[in-house]
């Protein structure tokens, strides 16, 4: 059980407290992991939340890659520790090479904030423990760079290995193969553009993110 979740905070991160609130509402514990420190405080799982780490200057995630905390997270992930990158966190994971491909600007060349439907394409990962392939979820997106790309052979390999975690049912950003989220080979590292922490309250319009966070807490 991943009772204690470390939530990474870079200068420019802005979804860290939303993520912590959502975890605590599910009776999980959450700790802030400051980007400049390599100590992971013995957490059981890690979330790299959304925002604009280091202002997203140069390129999304390109500077975050060099923050000391990322070396520790890479080792943690290679040892099988559960890691979820949400939005900017997904971008950071592709920059450090824990996930393949890259997120380029949306096809419409505009920032997009909207509720989006996604579908589980694979459940053999830390987010899919309580789901079935084909389950549909309403989860908000909020990004300018969410248009996933990778080399054709990488896509073929990921599809063969069931590593496409989520696909959009109505692709908002031009993402290759409607990809909204992917995982590594072991399934312990997941990156997704939609924000599950924003779908955890009926008052706010969706509770479909709860199952994903519960799955992470149970991983």
């Amino acid at each position: 059980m991943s009772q204690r979740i470390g939530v990474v905070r870079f200068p420019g991160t802005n979804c860290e407290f939303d993520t912590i609130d959502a975890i605590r509402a599910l009776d999980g514990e959450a700790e802030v992991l400051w980007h400049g420190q390599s100590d992971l405080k013995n957490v059981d799982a890690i979330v790299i939340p959304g925002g604009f780490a280091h202002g997203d200057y140069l390129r999304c995630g390109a500077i975050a890659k060099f923050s000391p905390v990322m070396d520790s997270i890479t080792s943690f992930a290679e040892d099988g520790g559960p890691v979820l990158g949400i939005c900017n966190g997904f971008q950071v994971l592709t920059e450090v090479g824990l996930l393949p491909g890259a997120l380029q600007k949306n096809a419409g060349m505009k920032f997009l904030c909207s509720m989006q439907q996604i579908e589980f394409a694979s459940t053999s990962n830390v987010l899919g423990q309580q789901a079935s392939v084909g389950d549909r979820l309403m989860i908000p997106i909020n990004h300018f760079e969410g248009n996933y790309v990778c080399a054709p052979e990488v896509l073929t390999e990921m599809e063969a290995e069931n590593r496409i975690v989520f696909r959009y049912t109505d692709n908002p950003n031009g993402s290759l193969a409607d990809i909204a989220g992917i995982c590594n080979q072991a399934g312990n590292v997941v990156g997704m553009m939609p924000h599950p922490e924003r779908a955890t309250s009926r008052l706010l319009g969706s509770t479909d993110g709860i199952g994903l966070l519960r799955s992470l807490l149970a991983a």
Partner: protein
Amino acid sequence: MSPAPEDASVHRALGLSDDEYQRIYELLERHPNHLELAMYSVMWSEHCSYKSSKIHLKRLPTQAPWVLVGPGENAGVIDVGDDIAVAIRIESHNHPSAIEPYQGAATGVGGILRDIFTMGARPIAVMDPLRFGPIDDPRSRWIAEGVISGVSGYGNSVGVPTVGGEIVFDETYKGNPLVNVLAMGVLPTERLVLGQASGVGNLAVLLGASTGRDGIGGVSVLASAGFDESSEDIDKRPSVQVGDPFEEKRLLEACLELLDQGLVSGIQDLGGAGITCATSETASRGGAGMDVDVTAIHARENNMEPFELMTSESQERMLAIIKPEDLAHVEEISARWEIQASVIGRVTGTGQLRILDGFDGDVLASLPASTLHDDAPEYKRPIAPPADLGERRAQDASQGPVDCINNLLSLLRDPAWVYSQYDHQLFLNTVVGPGNDGTLLRLRNPRNGQETGRGIALSTDGNHRWCHVDPRQGTAMVVAEAVMNIACVGAQPLAVVNCLNFGNPEHPEVMWQLAEAVDGMAEACVAFNAPVIGGNVSLYNETNAVDIAPTPVVGVIGMHPSLTTPPPSIGFPPNASLLLLGQVPDTDVSLAGSQWAWEIGGCKDGTLPTFDLQQAVRTSQFVAESVQKQQLLAIHDIAEGGLAVAAAEMAIDSGFGAQIVDHCDHVSMFNESGGRFLAVVGDELLDDFLKDAKRHDVPAIQIGRTGGTSLNFGTEIIIPVSELETAYRTELPEALGLGTVNT
């Protein structure tokens, strides 16, 4: 000594009049030097001193038991219970946005956010009421797209959600767009700090970005003069500042941490008039003086002149007043957030603001701090109603090419293309977001994030058409409209902030508009028991000597007392009763000031429909309570475009239509008689609801039933909902979405 300066062209070039020079001479009892003149010129600019409007603003109500801080501080603050306070402010960034749309809008967001965290509050919401020239004008589209990108680019990155606003296109804003930005924040009441310097020997620490040559004299050069089409306006581009949202984000987090740890006794943001404003305002508010060492200011460029350092409007800077023994701690927090911190000043007991070349060096300027702030001139400018007012009011606004179906289709516009570019969900508070009547946010305790079970509602509104026809009644209707918007989400008003966008105050007709608008606002704010707790006046909105239509914009903040269920949407449910609530329009109701008259009929004048303010108060209270009691299946207020546009928006939202009895002529469909709502009530509740309305003295008329796939007015006007939706969804993406031309 003679009061006449050696060279009058110096002070005139800085935007000071000869009379103002003389006033400075009398205050100092000597001739000011160039640096001192530059400091007076920015602080006595229209933008900073409100010298033309102050005399009128005094007529606004500003008091209520829940008001903690009223006008005059960086933001207004109200007590919302549970030891939680809310800070709110609205500002304009019109002139910078006309010159450089992206940066103008971006720095507008940055500036208003600093006003909020200056008070000790974490900013949690931005709203952006925007007004541009005609949508078929390429330059206006270029400005619109740049402004929207600027709000999106800065607001999203700095990490504050943009939860609502307006977008209006009209000929009157061609060449002079209105970019207003509202920000709201929450704080533990005990953390409230004011922008004042006290304690002799305390240090003034400049935090954040380095000071550069950007935005020098922005308030005096840009914000306090109109535009013409000469090349000179292009030359004003260096007076526009450049924003860095990442710097602002780090500055915000660092300042909130300094405040949390109790390290700051006073704090002030640097906006218009830069260091001059921040040092003189903090000193004069604290009844103190200050010595400022210009050589200590961390500068972006070498060889900057003292007047440049003192008047630069470089963004993302704050001035904190701290105790000397806390300096190391302040520096440690600043270093962690990677922001610069320089001790640039020391609080003194003299009342003088002295600018020094090194703390022990030459005195470059020495002024009584309060003279920059409190002794600014106050003008009673000439006022005159338009000479042809009688003729204008006699016009019949109902004439024009009547074609109800196509008229309705042409009046529909979906703002989603705009707000989908803004993060409007961050902080997990947004219960009702942009694209609805009012915005509704969960109110959570800023100490621990716990829900209070209550909601904060916001709305911004303006209507240049109503205010052009009748600035007094039009402004009262604008305030009512904002209150009605928050009623739709179950909230009642607590306070108002305003942004008064007007033309050239040297034109007596503009001052008449301003005076009338202030009176209309005062009447409405008294009626709704919502004091004005802050605001901003933007004058000289003119192009080629043509003033914009008067555009007072208000932001209303209100409270939903028990937020357990989302309020009803605006969408029609199937098979229920459609009611018209509120003031019954005159039998010969006028179309004057309506969107139909301006955009289709072509008449911009006439006399507004009668407006019963007290009825609007009763109706909006009744609607707010009905929403709280969950008695309504749908609710929408009637505003621009009248009943027909309101009904169409309700149909588009859900996909279900309605059959409306009568109301099938263009006057009934499109008049904008105020104080009205469309409400949908389930059959089982209908009798009780009607009785309840009667008991509250709120007219409620059943005008039809919801359901079906078309929206019908009478038996002749039948429009498929799909056709309404197509017209609604396509306008903005087609005009703005495919790129525009910079002409």
